[in-house]
């Protein structure tokens, strides 16, 4: 198809009445791309301090029918998860991301929770994952794919539980992207970045909004106020190195 490539590029240049860009213009454009220049970002979240951003995140997530439980520390996560599953009348079986952040949660405190680590399969009902950032502007979670965070966990089960550390809350999509770039050694993106705003929904029949079209019917966020036990991305890398 290289023929198609040359013909399409040729047709574009012919319409624009020029040849390939001169090296100066091309260098300028490459500079524009490399700069990650931000456009206008709404003041809604940018104008708030971090505590305000956390509150806004919770409000906005609630508006799109996500549920939020706030817990003091990681030690309280197993209880919060068990309580949620019981209240929703759900099975106490979880498939969880094989991620050191999730492994650091003291699951043994709730021995009745049956936990499998790995990707999701068709029969899994409830999944639990970490996130990479939580965006206050619209109550949006940013999750990335990787060996420790398979994407199927975010879409196959009926219920998706996401553990969010308070310090992962940022104002905007741009902040979340910057955090992602800073956390990665190479400039290569993960295979997938999922921005998730509430559970799956459709309005395809008579504009009735129904939750759980194909993805999760329920999105539950456990917000950990003191995430200190997990720490920064740098700590994570050290833990990974120790585990290997």
């Amino acid at each position, binding site marked *: 198809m290289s023929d198609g490539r040359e013909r399409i*590029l040729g047709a574009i240049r012919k319409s624009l009445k020029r040849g390939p860009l001169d090296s100066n213009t091309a260098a300028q454009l490459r500079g524009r791309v490399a700069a990650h220049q931000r*456009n206008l970002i709404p003041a809604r979240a940018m104008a708030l301090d971090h505590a305000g951003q956390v509150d806004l995140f919770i409000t906005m997530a609630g508006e799109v029918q996500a549920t939020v439980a706030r817990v003091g520390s990681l030690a309280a996560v197993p209880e919060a998860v068990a309580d949620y599953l019981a209240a929703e009348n759900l099975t106490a079986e979880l498939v969880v991301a094989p991620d050191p952040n999730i492994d650091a949660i003291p699951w043994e405190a709730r021995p009745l929770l049956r936990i499998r680590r790995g990707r999701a399969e068709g029969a899994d009902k409830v999944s639990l994952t970490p996130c990479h950032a939580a965006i206050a502007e619209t109550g949006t979670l940013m999750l990335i*794919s990787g060996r420790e965070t398979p994407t199927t966990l975010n879409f196959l089960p009926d219920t998706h539980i996401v553990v969010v550390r308070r310090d992962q809350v940022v104002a905007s999509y741009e902040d979340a992207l910057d955090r992602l770039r800073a956390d990665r050694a190479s400039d290569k993106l993960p295979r997938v970045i999922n921005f998730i705003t509430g559970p*799956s929904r459709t309005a395809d029949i008579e504009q009735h909004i129904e939750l759980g079209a194909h*993805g999760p019917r329920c999105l539950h966020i456990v917000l950990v106020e003191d995430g200190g036990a997990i720490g920064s991305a740098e700590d994570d890398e050290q833990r990974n190195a120790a585990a290997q």
Partner: protein
Amino acid sequence: MLATSRDFEANARAGLANDNLQRALGLARSGFPLRRQLAVERLPEFDRLREIGRSIKDHTLEHLDFYLELYESKVVASGGKVHWVRTPEEACAAVLQICRSVGAKIVTKGKSMVAEEMGLNEFLEANGINPVETDLGEYIIQLRREPPSHIIAPAIHLMKEQVAETFRTAHRSLDSERSLIEPRQMCDEAREVLRPRFLSADVGITGANFLVAETGSSIIVTNEGNGDLTQTLPRVHIVVTSIEKVVPTLEDAATLLRLLARSATGQEFSSYTTISTAPRRPADLDGPEQYHVVLLDNGRSALLGTDFQDMLRCIRCAACLNHCPVYAAVGGHAYGWVYPGPMGAVLTPSLIGIEETGHLPNASTFCGRCESVCPVKIPLPKMMRHWREREHAKKLSPPVYRTGLFLWARVARRPALYHALAEVASRVLGWTGQYRGRFRSLPLATGWTAVRDMPAPEGRSFHSLWAKRHK
């Protein structure tokens, strides 16, 4: 897809007479514009974002060759492949070749308007491959073998009773006595029926809302999660998309994403915005092993540098459809091809030729709402006028209309004659209409009076009243 746009008049009449369609459009008319309005009011920066969105797209189009080459180099560097195709036929062939290379039998599909342009489903079926639409609306119309009637709500022309009937006919293995009254039940049924298809598909095909040159990524925006299951579970992910979808950076995409959901459904952000970059990495536990992009031109490159270049800014939000009084009256099928509404009236002649698309640029009251809600400020009414000029210049409009226009132009260029005739007409119509105040029918204007009355003038022309007052 075969166009029936030439038959717009007959299609529109059929739409007006279709009770189910009229009820369904009634629901859409009130819902979409109100939700958009509320979302826009909550974001004080919305109008400035529109201006920035427009300049991002304009900048990209001016340097489209550069950004497409950069995009391709990034896709290749991360292990994907770009197939450049000029026509729908070449695009279908590229998809088929990929499907055959992995022996695919079942292909799941996320919603894609470019795939509709390609007529991809019919083509795959003819070649022994089973394409399964997974967006709820697309699934419903695939079962009914209908084209979409709206670019983001493809089954918007249907009432729930029609959907229930379709499901009863299609899902024969389910209990025939089951209740199918509420949308919730139909939604659950589609979820149940489609889940095994997701899990067994060999290839997943999605469209793209944006392509990012900086990273070689494709972005899809959905609410159901079907697009993500479609592209995560099979061994191969094919993105079918078109050349004008590219933007320079993730930051540029973020700005356009702020405009897209609000303009489309009035959501702050869609449930799922997914940035995909190439196939699975060595240690990943899931994701496709192959990532292909079929990149279609189909007449778009020829629009650059013309009166219609601005149309390439379109981000397919459907705000112009949702706010168009003509669309709201006749529905999407009347437009006869892939893209309905104001954006379709401009884009369809651009892509398949004004000869094929007859009345579409005339399917407008020129009320201007489409332009006023467009997130990237495309001057849609102006471009419809450009098409009308070309239709006239190519002598494609009906002879009666052309003769009438010719006579009117002769008179209008002679002010004295024009004023005299206008005065005579006002007096005659004013006198004959003084009793009722309106006309039920008028010679030469029966097309207009067939569906409404013509108000009678009050007896003098505006010019003569003006002249009298300023004497």
